[in-house]
């Protein structure tokens, strides 16, 4: 028995030794990759330009945040039985999805709204009335979404709806942080600095009322 064990050990070790050497010269795949699931890589496809738009947005504040939201509905699976005191209750199965969204809210002023009457020059003094600050965009890209849990059958529309709820919640939180007031203060500061650098001695910048 001991002799047989030694014989087989020797064979296995020799095989492993050969595999090890073959791996070193890349003639055999590494054990690390044998059972590893290969990543799904997308093909290089052309990027088509659909629209080109001219903007004049002064982005002055960005708010980064992460929001977690979940959605649940009655599932089609087998109901589970739970005990409630002395009796047993049949609970229908439920489908559940939990998504984490990480993104940014951009706030600032749209300078396209600036009109001739908003700029008054008098010698070396200037008065500018800037448009009120607004949320310019809330961005959560695919790389910013993480599906933490997905149980049951969820169609694309429901997932998209949940993602949009996450985006809206992020915008709400940014507004709650007084992002617009801060964006206005910063916009005023940037424009004042710019006007002073262009030679004006007296600079008066105000924000139009909401």
């Amino acid at each position, binding site marked *: 028995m001991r002799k047989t064990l030694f014989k*087989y050990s020797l064979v296995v070790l020799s095989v492993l030794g050969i595999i090890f050497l073959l791996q070193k010269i890349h003639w055999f795949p590494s054990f690390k990759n044998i*059972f590893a699931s290969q990543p799904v890589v997308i093909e290089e496809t052309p990027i088509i330009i659909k629209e080109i738009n001219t*903007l004049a947005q002064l982005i002055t504040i960005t708010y980064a945040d992460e929001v977690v939201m979940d959605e649940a509905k009655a599932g089609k699976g087998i109901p589970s039985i739970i005990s409630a005191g002395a009796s047993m209750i049949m609970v229908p199965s439920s489908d559940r999805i939990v998504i984490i969204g990480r993104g940014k809210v951009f706030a600032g002023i749209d300078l396209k709204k600036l009109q001739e009457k908003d700029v008054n020059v008098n010698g070396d003094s200037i008065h500018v009335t800037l448009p009120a600050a607004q949320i310019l965009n809330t961005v959560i890209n695919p790389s910013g979404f993480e599906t933490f849990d997905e149980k049951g059958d969820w169609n694309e529309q429901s997932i998209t709806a949940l993602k949009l709820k996450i985006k809206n919640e992020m915008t709400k939180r940014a507004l709650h942080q007084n992002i617009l007031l801060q964006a206005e203060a910063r916009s005023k500061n940037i424009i004042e600095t710019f006007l002073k650098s262009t030679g004006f001695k007296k600079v008066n910048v105000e924000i139009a009322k909401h």
Partner: protein
Amino acid sequence: MRMYLILFFLFPVLFINCTAKKESKMQEVIGLQKMSDLATAEYVVTKIIKANDNKTWYKPGDRKILMSCKASLVAGVDLSNISEKDVSIDGDNIALTIPHARLIYLDIKPEDVKTVYEDVSMFRTSFSSQEKDALASQAEKQIKESADSLGIFITAEANAIIFINNFLKKEGFQNINISMSSAKSSLQ
């Protein structure tokens, strides 16, 4: 008996290194941050996301997916990079040097990523939400990397010059000369 002995020696080796690597995610600061970007150009682009999951040898059958995605790229100039040395005034004449345009953000809205076609073989499960997001993330990366070749920075710089030129005219300057800085700003 012989078979058991071989399996006894081979099993530990086969399962070594089969554990999945945990990817470390970069920490991002959450909260408010100041910016001074003048966004001047937006490019709306589309891309087809094409993938075939047939590379893993032990998974029977394959899965194919075709998705469409629409993205918007916004570029502009960072006004905080304009200092006093970049402005020279002589009466009604002004010369201004502005920094090169950079990508301010890329926006792929959830509703703009759609599955057009999906073919899943009998022994495989359909693409999960997480897997679809991972594929769209790859497209996001490809779009971001191609920003320069799309010509958005040239458009953003041209638009920035026009906008600042008009603004300076409103201030009363007659001869306005706006040029781009020689230093190339880094992409976000």
